[in-house]
């Protein structure tokens, strides 16, 4: 564990304000499985005007498939609205290399042609490897590539962050 303390609940409150500021009528909320989907679910409960959120998974478009196989989880994308012409507010817990976002955009375009996609995240940890940018990040931090930052959700629905050393 690192000494860095990230208060996920406080950051969630920040994110909620950020999302409220980005939100335009007619937008649709979409969370990236799994952390982003939890955030979208809670935001939709806190801010009913956001409507029912979609869930999107990167599994079928990941660029590390040959190395990781199908190990990345199997939860399926569920989009309860038409993607064609939609303005989508995309949510994720941690923005790092940008590769998950690239995979998710490919997944999204398999369902139609959205009018726009805006990204909001809880934490932007730097280390981008693709030209991807979040319109809102509740926190910006720098972590060594060897550390994995992951959002967790407790049984009562509260968020926590864990930082783990990875064997890379």
């Amino acid at each position, binding site marked *: 564990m690192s000494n860095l303390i990230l208060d996920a609940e406080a950051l969630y409150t920040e994110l909620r304000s950020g999302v409220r500021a980005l939100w335009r009528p007619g937008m649709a909320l979409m969370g990236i499985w799994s952390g982003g989907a939890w955030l979208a679910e809670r935001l939709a409960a806190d801010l009913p005007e956001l409507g029912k959120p979609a869930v999107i*998974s990167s*599994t*079928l*478009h990941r660029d590390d*498939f*040959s190395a*990781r*196989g*199908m*190990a990345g989880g*199997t*939860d*399926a*994308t*569920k989009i309860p609205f038409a993607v064609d012409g939609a303005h989508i507010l995309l949510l994720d817990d941690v923005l790092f290399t940008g590769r998950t976002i690239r995979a998710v955009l*490919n997944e999204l*375009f*398999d*369902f*139609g042609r959205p009018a726009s996609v805006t990204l909001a995240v809880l934490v932007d940890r730097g280390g981008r490897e693709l030209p991807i940018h979040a319109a809102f990040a509740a926190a910006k931090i720098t972590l060594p590539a060897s550390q994995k930052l992951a959002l967790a959700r407790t049984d009562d629905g509260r968020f926590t962050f864990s930082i783990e050393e990875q064997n890379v």
Partner: protein
Amino acid sequence: MLHKRNPQLNRHGELIHLLSIEGLPREVVVNILDTAGTFLSVNDREVKKVPLLRGKSVFNLFFENSTRTRTTFEIAAKRLSADVLNLDIAKSSAAKGESLLDTIANLSAMHADMFVVRHGESGAPYLIAQHCAPHVHVVNAGDGRHAHPTQGLLDMYTIRHFKQDFRQLSVAIVGDIVHSRVARSDIHALTTLGVPDIRAVGPKTLVPGDLQGMGVRVCHDMAEGIRGADVVIMLRLQSERMSGAMLPSAGEFFKHYGLTDEKLKLAKPDAIVMHPGPINRGVEIASAVADGTHSVILPQVTFGIAVRMAVMSIIAGNEA
């Protein structure tokens, strides 16, 4: 010390070939079913294709004819963006006297990444898996009387879809069990998934008593066999069996073991009726049942594509 490893699994216990359900750990089977659920929704998208096998070549090697199975594998591979080559081996190399392993060596030299094999001899896919290059994966699409694992898995997906929990179920498999690789794969899968009551139903010539060793209850009486069943799996009566002394006639078989509305009333009121296809109406199943409200024969076909996508993507993502 040498350990004899299941040839379908790598040293991490991950699936690299699908040859038989027999001997697969429960979690591997469940993972295939879960993954298939993900792929089922791909069929509802505007773009019915995902790029997991992009740049990979899947060779369909059908030493024995089967248009339907070959087509579902072809659709599954194409939805995963693989390049698919269908080789009608029965009419080409094998007919010219080339050995199985020479055929495989030649196709490997063409940079195949996966072989989908249907063969009349039990064990042929094992032989291929043992002799192909380490990066090549093998899927058994039916070998002799031995196994038809993707059919077994799609049957399990279908049962789980309609019945959720395997641990409470009574499943009756009816018909020509002794010649059926589908029955064998179903029995192994049902046992692995914890189904407590599996019945093999049919005449003595087609359902031998020694099946009890596989953990099933043998019933030669149809009424006894399907009474209270949650799932009734009807097998195709292979007409080629009729020529021998195994059966008096198709009409006689239907009278005793054909599934009619009348007989189906003995099963649970919400029982599902399955069949691997192609169905012989009026031989093993009445039209009214095949087209009736209990029948899930067409959903089986749809689920079959998702299950084959799951199998191919899982094995392609694991290294030998």
